[in-house]
């Protein structure tokens, strides 16, 4: 069973620490969810190298051969979700939506609509809304995007490591499978990102 050390690093022979402080942006107040991403990079090294410059990133990176790297402390926040979240009630359970408010927002132009929905959703507690950077861990899988609707397939080794890592995080943070999301479920991204990622 992996443990978390005083620096927020997962301690296990399966995980190589490659922490980049430039992608850590303040404290992560709580962990309520996990968001699974794909990098749009050809190799783990290119992503690790990019992380050295700072900016956006995620807590873990899984190479095509299944090797897991931890790239940020679990006590710190990464910018991995995107600036605007979608409406969870619209996609998961429409009957739980504030129907009048949603109708007003959906009548707006797309740009105004997604900003209004984001503000509306952020007023809700999790799990009534999708996770945000302040309450979620990001896991990146190495893989290129193909077009506006697809990414290359996640490898079997990546899926095996993803399941191992998610199981470890379930145990550490009392999470369940309904707390794990593909990136485009949460925010407005390429709908093919992490589509072939599998977990229980």
């Amino acid at each position, binding site marked *: 069973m992996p443990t978390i050390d005083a620096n927020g690093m997962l301690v296990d022979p399966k995980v190589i620490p490659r922490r980049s402080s430039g992608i850590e942006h303040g404290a992560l107040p709580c962990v309520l969810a996990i968001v699974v991403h794909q990098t*749009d990079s050809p190799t783990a090294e290119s992503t690790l190298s990019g992380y050295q410059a700072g900016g956006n990133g995620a807590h873990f990176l899984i190479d095509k051969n299944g090797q897991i790297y931890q790239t940020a402390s679990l006590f710190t926040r990464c910018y991995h979700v995107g600036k605007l979240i979608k409406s969870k009630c619209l996609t998961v359970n429409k009957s739980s939506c504030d129907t009048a408010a949603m109708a007003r927002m959906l009548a707006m132009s797309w740009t105004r609509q997604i900003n209004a929905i984001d503000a509306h959703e952020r007023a809700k507690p999790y799990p009534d809304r999708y996770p945000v950077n302040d309450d979620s861990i990001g896991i990146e899988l190495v893989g290129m995007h193909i077009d506006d609707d697809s990414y290359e397939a996640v490898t079997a080794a990546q899926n095996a490591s993803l399941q191992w890592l998610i199981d470890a995080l379930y145990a550490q943070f009392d999470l369940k499978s309904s707390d794990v999301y593909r990136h485009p479920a949460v925010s407005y991204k390429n*709908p093919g990102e992490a589509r072939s990622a599998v977990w229980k």
Partner: protein
Amino acid sequence: MEVRAGALALLTGAVLLASCATREPAFSNIYVAEFHTDAPASCRASDVPRSHGKAQEFFSRAKEVDYKTLHDHYEQAPCYAEGTLTRQGRSCDWRIRAGATGSVQCAEQKLYFACDTCDDLFDSK
């Protein structure tokens, strides 16, 4: 000596200005052909530029970015206008998505764009 250096600087400046003034735009013959949406209830034809002039204006103001920048910092809208343009004498296909992002596909090459100063080209109601 100082006079000659000044004259040389002026000449260089004039040449640079002339080259800017006569520079060919990257794209020409920008025409809108179609609209597509994967979310008709939320992303509509009114959300994207539908005139040739607005499409032309988008590509003149937008900056070219790599896909990671587009993915990390912009939203991918589920609807877009699309059409054709000419680049370096070749016909290419373009898309402009609600949310002020775009792409140009020229054979195997794909270029990505984002515009931070194009609010007036998109419906803001």
